[in-house]
């Protein structure tokens, strides 16, 4: 075989090319080029986060099972607290909240959705609780009028008092239902498929994944164990991560791939930010923001180059959440060192830096924004507490005995998982 033949073979052999790959790349490169030039159209079109949609999913629960010794841990305020004033209304200046024995009201109002060992529970603003049923997972509809709940192969829409509105039985186990901002669609995973169904339980269909029964999943298409995320723009754009670690944006009506890029390595969670102009990705070791061309731009939703938020080396991102109305990301970060662990709640403002709001010995768990973006609810499984931390002026609250409060049967159970804090008034 001579070089000419090999050259010809390499040059001419047919190779697969994803549909519109060249065009997609052209749009992304053009956008990056325009951004480099300071294109005013692109920059001007950046909009503040206005979605009412909740935006978080938990990252591995590293905090579970900690020793009760952490009950003696003392809340420490960050010395950097004062600097928070620059872009958060005020520093978190409360002294160590004395834990109240029970939750008598939700500080700041709104309803909580909590997954317990017995099923999802809705916590009303007055602190009263209602178990919705024996479901394995749940999430709010955009305005908190309904809850999507899953159990085995069943997906159900419930009223917040647990009354079922409809149910479907899928071919495979269902998980991570997510309502679209309009409430018209629910995306969910069934086995290795990503599916979408109308909010009234009709028009259930495959969006991406394997097809014939028994066929191994195609990792390049099938969804990974990362919840899908709807664009807050209401433009039928659904982001998900494939099993092969690729971030994709689909048109939820046609199934067409609108954009794609490599997802963050070991990604555990992602969501849209800044009114649909960015996508935040999280993994245990990193947080990353990727720009999406804004609504109204002809090339939307092309994905831009990712930018990492500064997570210190060796730190573990336990959970992260996007503020509903501001471009802020709260993260629960744990540091493991020879003499034990300590944890921080860090609030990032992408492109502007980060601030530590709270430092405690031991491990913190999930973090959740209040619907108005003024408070954080932080779970502290080791201390069996929830911490309600105001970002601005105000008093922090701590609630003790959280596990017992959500286990009426008094059976030993895992610490309740935060599934959502709903909704803006």
């Amino acid at each position, binding site marked *: 075989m001579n070089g000419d033949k090999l*050259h010809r*073979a390499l040059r001419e052999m047919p190779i697969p090319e994803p549909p519109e790959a060249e065009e997609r*790349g052209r749009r992304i490169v053009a956008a990056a080029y325009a951004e480099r030039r300071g294109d005013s159209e692109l920059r001007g079109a950046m909009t503040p986060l206005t979605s009412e949609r909740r935006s978080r999913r938990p990252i591995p629960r590293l905090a579970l099972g900690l020793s009760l010794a952490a009950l003696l841990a003392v809340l420490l305020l960050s010395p950097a607290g004062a600097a928070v004033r620059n872009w958060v209304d005020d520093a978190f200046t409360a002294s160590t909240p004395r834990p109240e024995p029970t939750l008598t009201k939700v500080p700041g109002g709104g309803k909580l959705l909590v997954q317990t060992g017995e099923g999802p529970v809705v916590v009303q603003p007055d602190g009263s609780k209602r178990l919705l049923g024996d479901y394995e997972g749940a999430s709010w509809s955009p305005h908190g009028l309904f809850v999507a709940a899953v159990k085995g192969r069943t997906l159900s829409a419930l009223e917040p008092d647990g009354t079922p509105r409809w149910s479907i039985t899928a071919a495979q186990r269902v998980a991570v239902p997510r309502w679209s901002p309009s409430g018209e669609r629910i995306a969910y995973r069934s086995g290795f498929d990503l599916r979408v169904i109308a909010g009234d339980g009709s028009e259930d269909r495959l969006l991406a994944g394997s097809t014939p029964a028994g066929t191994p999943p195609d990792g390049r298409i099938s969804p990974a164990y990362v919840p899908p995320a709807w664009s807050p723009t209401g433009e039928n754009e659904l982001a998900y991560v494939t099993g*092969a670690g690729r971030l994709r944006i689909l048109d939820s009506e046609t199934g067409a791939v609108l954009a*794609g890029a490599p997802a963050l390595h070991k990604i555990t969670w992602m969501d849209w930010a800044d009114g649909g102009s960015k996508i935040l990705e999280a993994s245990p070791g990193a947080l990353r923001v990727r720009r999406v061309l804004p609504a109204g731009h002809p090339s939307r939703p092309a994905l831009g180059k990712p930018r990492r938020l500064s997570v210190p080396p060796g730190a573990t991102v336990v959970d992260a959440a996007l503020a509903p109305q501001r471009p802020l990301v709260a993260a629960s970060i744990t540091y493991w060192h020879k003499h034990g662990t300590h944890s921080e709640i860090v609030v990032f403002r992408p492109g502007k830096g980060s601030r530590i709001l709270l430092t405690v010995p031991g491990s913190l768990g999930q973090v959740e924004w209040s619907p108005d973006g003024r408070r954080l609810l932080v779970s502290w499984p080791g201390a069996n507490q929830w911490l309600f931390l105001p970002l601005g002026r105000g008093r922090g609250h701590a609630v003790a005995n959280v596990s017992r409060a959500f286990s009426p049967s008094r059976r030993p159970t895992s610490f309740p998982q935060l599934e959502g804090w709903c909704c803006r008034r």
Partner: protein
Amino acid sequence: MREAQEGSEAAMARLYALHWRGAYRAAYLVVHDAAAAEDIAQDAFLAAVDALDRFDRRRPFRPWLHRIVVNRALDWARREALRRRVDAAESAFEPLPPPGEIGGEMIAALKELPAEQRAVVVLRHLLEYTPGEIARMLELPRGTVNSRLRRGLDRLREAAETEQLAEERR
């Protein structure tokens, strides 16, 4: 290149149009994964946009772009080699040309080569760089480049002969 550096979108679009296919093909022939090749080609162009201001116009753009493409493709291929769990499932879905189609045997044989050999074969015989240029691009001794080329070509020879036989029968 000069116009692109001075802010001409049209010039940037021309650069992209001129080099996209080559970059994608080179990436694909190293990684054998269409989605990854798309990402790699895209990332290479984004890196080019990032570095436009620093780019020395006296130097050619093409080898600079290809250097990024092939090095990223190699990084990807090495990472994939470590991800043992996906290999079996994914290989069944790899959209190879059907046997008998032009290049089918060759692309299958190329895929069997170690990524490092694939990269030098692609740089030498698709993109037509000299072994010296390849050595500089990959930061390897020239002797290493030559030995990888030789080993790679030995393995491809058999595939080429099979393909030739098939062509003759057609």
